[in-house]
């Protein structure tokens, strides 16, 4: 019972934060609120039993992306510049409402949350749940699927991310010594 209540409250907070983000003009405050947004959505993932997604959301959403967005603001240096909208909001509003309606229509076909007869529950999931530990020896089933059963797929993803990282470094590189000093400093703070 209480987890339903927590769900509803967190979703309400999420909606409030989203509206506030849309209405705000100060980029800095918006990034702060993005942090709250990530915390809330990860809390929702936890309540909905998706511990791994919550882990990723915590590390990427609340941690890395906040720092990256702040770094972008620091590099572009016009934090407080206000820009009036150069177009009328009606066309984007119509597009957004149509997309939202289509998505809501799509959810009608999705099985109920936690339904035991859902395809996700009956197709390959039982195989992984039964065999994962004896076959791979990895205690976390999701990790075993990602790193063992779908190892080549994950390898491909990692190669893509690595290539993107190299490309970014080549484009904006040349700041290595300074950034390593910053890292050392942060660890000094932590200790």
């Amino acid at each position, binding site marked *: 019972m209480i987890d339903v209540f927590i769900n509803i409250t967190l979703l309400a907070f999420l909606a409030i934060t989203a509206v506030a983000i849309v209405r705000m003009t100060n980029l800095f405050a918006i990034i702060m609120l993005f942090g709250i947004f990530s915390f809330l959505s990860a809390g929702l993932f*936890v309540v909905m039993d998706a511990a791994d997604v919550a882990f990723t959301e915590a590390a990427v959403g609340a941690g890395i992306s906040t720092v990256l967005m702040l770094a972008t603001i620091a590099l572009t240096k016009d934090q407080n510049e206000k820009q009036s909208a150069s177009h009328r909001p009606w066309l984007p509003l119509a597009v957004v409402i149509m997309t939202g309606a289509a998505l809501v229509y799509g959810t009608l076909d999705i099985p109920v949350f936690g339904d035991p007869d859902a395809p996700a529950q009956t197709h390959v999931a039982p195989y992984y749940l039964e065999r994962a530990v004896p076959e791979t020896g990895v205690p976390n089933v999701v990790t075993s699927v990602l790193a063992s059963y779908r190892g080549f797929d994950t390898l491909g993803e990692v190669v893509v991310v690595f290539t993107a990282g190299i490309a970014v470094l080549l484009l904006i590189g040349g700041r290595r010594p300074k950034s390593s000093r910053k890292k050392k400093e942060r660890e000094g703070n932590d200790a």
Partner: protein
Amino acid sequence: MLTAVSLAILITMGLALARALMGPTVYDRIAAINMFGTKTVLLIAVFAFLSGRMDLLDIALVYALINFIGVVAVLKLVIYGDFHSSGKDNTKPVKVD
């Protein structure tokens, strides 16, 4: 009992969220977000006990760390304007009035 505690934490989260939305200064917002993060950590810890899934505590742990790193990164940007400077070169000393 755990239910009551999670309710109390939710109320506190709501109050902190209100402060983060109202401002008025950017520091108020950061303080409220730091508080919000701490409450999320506690909520996840309480929820782990509520549902009996102790592995959720790992997430609470990661959160406690990320919250701190995020706040320090934000403050570094607020004080120095970028992430590279390290010294007190562009700040003036504080005086007691």
